[in-house]
């Protein structure tokens, strides 16, 4: 199912059936998208914690992310092309590497590891390009311009997918998404519970 279809399905689900004109405005797709994003991220984190190896389906490839030189810090950097699902251990960054060489990847290092690796042999004998994630940027301490632009495989949040991108849900969690979205909308009174048994779908 693609993203647009999923949003529409959630919209139908929230309205309890066919979407009539007045309900359509009430559950605006952009608002629904934000709620689906919360639910989607929550389901992905749960799935990752159960089985960290099963994340390939949720990634999106950004084949051409260029980097520039930050004169202040003396390092190259690029901006992350999308907001990421907050998976543990920065697992949402699946791969950063050259555009065309599938067999070669850059090595992520933690932000504070520079002074430690700087004193160890590994920095002297291994020239694999490193990257450090700092907020919404990725810094490359030892990259050369030959690698520009780089390829990134990321697990982005729901809103970063295009309308026609296929959205995969964790196994067996398809229907859970609707429940979570409903629950979130209920708690924020986006979909107030109808307490009156008056055969009227409107909440007024």
């Amino acid at each position, binding site marked *: 199912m693609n993203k647009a279809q999923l949003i529409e399905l959630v919209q139908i689900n929230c309205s309890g059936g066919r979407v009539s004109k007045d309900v359509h405005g009430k559950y605006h797709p952009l608002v629904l998208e934000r709620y689906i994003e919360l639910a989607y991220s929550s389901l992905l984190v749960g799935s990752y914690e159960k089985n960290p190896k099963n994340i390939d389906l949720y990634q999106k490839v950004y084949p051409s992310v260029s980097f520039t030189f930050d004169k202040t810090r003396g390092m190259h950097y690029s901006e992350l092309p999308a907001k990421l699902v907050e998976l543990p251990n920065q697992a949402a960054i699946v791969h950063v590497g050259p555009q065309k060489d599938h067999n070669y990847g850059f*090595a*992520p290092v933690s932000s504070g*590891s520079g002074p430690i690796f700087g004193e*160890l*042999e*590994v920095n002297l*004998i291994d020239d694999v390009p490193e990257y450090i994630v700092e907020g919404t940027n990725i810094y490359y301490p030892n990259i050369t311009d030959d690698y520009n632009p780089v390829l990134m495989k990321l697990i982005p949040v729901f809103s970063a997918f295009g309308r026609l991108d296929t959205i995969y849900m964790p196994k067996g969690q398809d229907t859970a998404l609707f429940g979570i979205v409903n629950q979130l909308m209920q708690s924020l009174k986006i979909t107030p519970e109808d307490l009156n048994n008056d055969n009227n779908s409107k909440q007024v």
Partner: protein
Amino acid sequence: MSDNTNTSAVVTIRYVVMSILNQLQEYSMKDYKYLAQLVIEGYTDINLWTLGTVNVVYVSMDPDSKILNFPSDMVDYYKIGYINNGRVYNLTLNDDLALPRATSCGHTLNDFNAGNINFGYYYTDHYYNGTYNNKLFGLGGGLNDSYYRIDKERNCILFSNNLPSKDFVIEYKSTGVSLTSQTLIPRQAVKTLQNYVHWQRIEHDVRVGANQKDRKQNLYLQELEKLRDFEYTPTMQEYLDSLYEDIKQVPKR
């Protein structure tokens, strides 16, 4: 060169790291540098204590100071000799040579007399200056005509001053990890290194129980023992050579 289709007998540090990541089914580069450093430390350790690797270096001494700096990767030496007319003469350790501390490095040392020269040692086969040198003969210890002393404080060697040459050959035990070229790890050491890394990964983790740590350490020690067997066991031909060396034909009585 024969057309060999088998896998290589030597591998790289990167290969060992990737094989460890594969064993862990960790298909990302997240721990790459951490593991690479562990492999380097493990290989240095195995190289120093188990593998019989020997490095040879040709160096020139400063004729004024009579001091020769060690190669930076030298952990210990096997043989020190000088080259004269294409032959290598072993030198003898003499801890009575005065170390030049009171003055500059140009301190003059005492002369030593030459002794008889009758015996020699083999040097490891090696390439030097584009030439393959096999079995250079050094001359036996205790009978040499020049002497040296190791100055560990300054990481150098001090020579007596009656040397006919300033060119030396040092056979030594290296750290085994090259900074300038690809470090090649013998295939037989790969499993030992893998187990070393698996053990070290948990050894300093307080959340891991002592039984797990012991188990991983034992697995490493088992592989280390296998490697020792591999390295130290002579081949059948070497054994026969050794056996036949002492066999003599004598007249029957």
